[in-house]
């Protein structure tokens, strides 16, 4: 009797476990905040990824896109799973330093999400794997040319640039008749709105941060034909013909403060929140902002359509144009070919293919990096604003893929600060920047056997 009972209990247990195992199997493909794919998969990839490309994104539309696209990928790759390591928002340099250290210790993720201006460091360290076998030539060609200086080296492609942005000059069209084209125009218009309407003139995040470089230096510098690096990553931004060009930029920034076109506050602005608060209060005439701000301004300003418009960056000369463009790239670190292929399939189906980029850019309010998306996806090709962004991207520039870029950018931010607070003249600051940059370069060169 007891024996019989034992047998039946065991049988029942077996049955239950089979049923549960079945249920588990059916339920096995998931998209969670730290995992994508089959939870029981034996083959698991790891990725370091931005929060906004996980279902933890604060935007519903982004979450919806990821849930759908990642699920589709996961169903197509049932033996695989991806473990997500979410990067910390706003801590780019710490995250990148950590990833570099992980890579050096051999514990890095299989593929990573990488801010475009950090790609150089990973390339120079020899950490990125070529991805040419996994993408078609047509896909490669579709990306804007200016992205290739970062994603390609020696004819091989190492990264997929997922989205970008452009910086623009936004202005109050109801107060300013002709949008500024030159620096002089800008200062004039800023002073005019101040005098006539009693609001702030021109705001830009010129504080000591990457913004000082990306929003306030490179576009002005490149439009004059300036170059940051020469052969072998040698910094040349403060010597030869470039010297005067950089001096022009610093002098312009100083003029903003001296003429009162911009309040002194811009010296400590390291982000856009303070600028948006003035926009919202109808208290500023001209601002530097990114392409993403179009929808934000619509959200926070009443009758935004009648008040705000944007134009390309003002430049020293009226007929020159340039933009500095950001965005994040995706790159593969693992040397395992099978993993490389699967990682690339994830990257392409979430971000890189034409369809994926179009869908993701729509859901994320991003700007595509492939010209074919702008040309043939109706959301972009029929929207006048998107087409104006497209025009802007034709003047696009990427920050150079050099290990020294973050260093040079940091020095530039410090030197611009020195000029703005009146510690140094523009010429002194540029010379000091060049001197320090060369010291850094020589030391760096010594480590590149």
């Amino acid at each position, binding site marked *: 009797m007891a024996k019989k009972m034992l047998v039946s209990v065991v049988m029942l247990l077996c049955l239950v476990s089979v049923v549960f195992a079945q249920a588990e199997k059916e339920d096995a493909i998931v998209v969670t905040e730290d995992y994508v794919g089959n939870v029981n998969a034996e083959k698991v990839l790891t990725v370091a990824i931005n929060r906004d490309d996980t279902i933890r994104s604060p935007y519903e539309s982004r979450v919806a896109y990821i849930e759908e696209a990642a699920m589709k990928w996961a169903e197509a790759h049932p033996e695989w799973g991806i473990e997500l390591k979410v990067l910390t928002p706003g801590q780019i*340099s*710490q995250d990148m*330093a950590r990833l*570099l*250290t992980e*890579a*050096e210790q051999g514990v890095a993720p299989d593929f990573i999400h990488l801010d475009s201006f950090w790609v150089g*460091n*990973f390339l120079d*360290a020899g*950490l990125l794997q070529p991805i040419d076998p996994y993408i078609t030539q047509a896909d490669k060609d579709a990306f804007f040319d200016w992205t290739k200086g970062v994603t390609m080296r020696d004819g091989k492609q190492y990264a997929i640039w997922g989205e970008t942005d452009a910086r623009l000059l936004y202005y109050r069209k109801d107060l300013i008749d002709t949008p500024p084209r030159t620096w002089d125009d800008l200062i004039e218009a800023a002073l005019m709105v101040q005098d006539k309407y009693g609001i702030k003139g021109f705001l830009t995040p010129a*504080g*000591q*941060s990457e913004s000082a470089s990306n929003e306030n230096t490179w576009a002005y510098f490149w439009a004059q034909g300036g170059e940051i690096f020469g052969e072998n990553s040698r910094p040349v931004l403060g010597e030869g013909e470039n010297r005067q060009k950089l001096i022009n930029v610093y002098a312009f920034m100083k003029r903003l403060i001296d003429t009162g076109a911009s*309040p*002194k*506050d*811009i*010296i*400590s602005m*390291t982000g856009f*929140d*303070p600028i948006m*608060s*003035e926009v*919202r*209060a109808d208290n500023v005439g001209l601002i530097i902002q990114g392409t993403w701000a179009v929808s934000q301004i619509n959200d926070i300003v009443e009758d935004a359509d009648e008040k705000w418009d944007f134009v390309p960056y003002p430049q020293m000369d009226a007929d020159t144009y340039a933009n500095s463009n950001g965005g994040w790239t995706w790159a593969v670190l693992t040397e395992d070919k099978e993993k490389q292929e699967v990682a690339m399939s994830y990257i392409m189906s979430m971000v890189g293919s034409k369809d994926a980029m179009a869908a993701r850019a729509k859901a994320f309010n991003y700007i595509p990096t492939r010209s074919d998306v702008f040309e043939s996806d109706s959301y972009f090709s029929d929207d006048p604003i998107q087409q104006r962004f497209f025009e802007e991207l034709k003047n696009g520039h990427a920050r150079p893929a050099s*290990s020294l870029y*973050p*260093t040079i950018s*940091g020095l530039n*931010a*410090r*030197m*611009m*600060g*020195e*000029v*703005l*607070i009146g*510690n*140094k003249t523009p010429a002194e600051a540029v010379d*000091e920047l060049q001197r*320090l940059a060369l*010291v*850094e370069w020589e*030391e*760096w060169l*010594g*480590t590149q*056997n």
Partner: protein
Amino acid sequence: MLLQKRATLDRQGKWWVWVLPLLLILGLFYLYPILSIFRLSFTDSRVGNPNFSYTLSSYKAVLTDVTLWRVLKVTLIFSLSSVFFQLFLGLITALLIKKDLFGAGLVKLSMVFAWVVPGIITGIMWQMIYSSNSWGILNYVIQKLGFSAVPFLSDPVLALTAAIIANVWRGTGFSGIMQYAALCAIPNELYESAKIDGASAWQSFWAITLPQLKPMLMINVVLITIYSFNTYDSIYALTRGGPGGSTTVISLQAYESVFSYLQLGRGSVYAIFMTLLSVVFTLIYIRLLDSEEK
């Protein structure tokens, strides 16, 4: 006989057995990284690049950097003002709380509140407070009072002052609570007998309170000096070391070297300098305390 016994007890016994766990933990988990810093300071090592060569170039680069003197100056101003005001405010607060009048509990509580705010959040918070924008409460009040807005973080002197205030705000709780604990431990009889001898409150403060507090003040001042030399997170979040490097203290410089410029060698040199600064100041404090006792 008792005295004799005490003397023998003190000399006998294996003191090191009691210290062993401490030495083990420090040795196993922390010593190697510390030694690495020392070694790395003599290299040109970069983050993410395991290859390096031994060289004095990191020391040379730090010592010949024209900004070094400004960094040291900013560090000393920041640290010494922070230490002074934290100690001073902490002591005053502790003495006042000791009076135990209505509201003392809330003072204690609010002091602790400020103290538990992590450094980065301190910086972010004070940035919101100093802002010239709609959420900048300080400027709002200033303007309500009829003055024009103050660009706290855009002026070199104001920005450094702002960073010191934020640090004092956060750190005073630590000193205050320590002093308060020490004050509570001073026997009341001492004050009572001083009163009988006709000492004024001021006199008994100098004759009783201060000497009794001295050991605690000593630990306190050493620690907040070390903390101040090592503070980078609140300044980073507040000003990023700007404008124009005017709030770049040595630990922030070390942070930038390692995390923005990836120069591990140079960051290590800064770490060594910071340690030396802490040691020098600790020795000075010890000297001061000893000489006063003589």
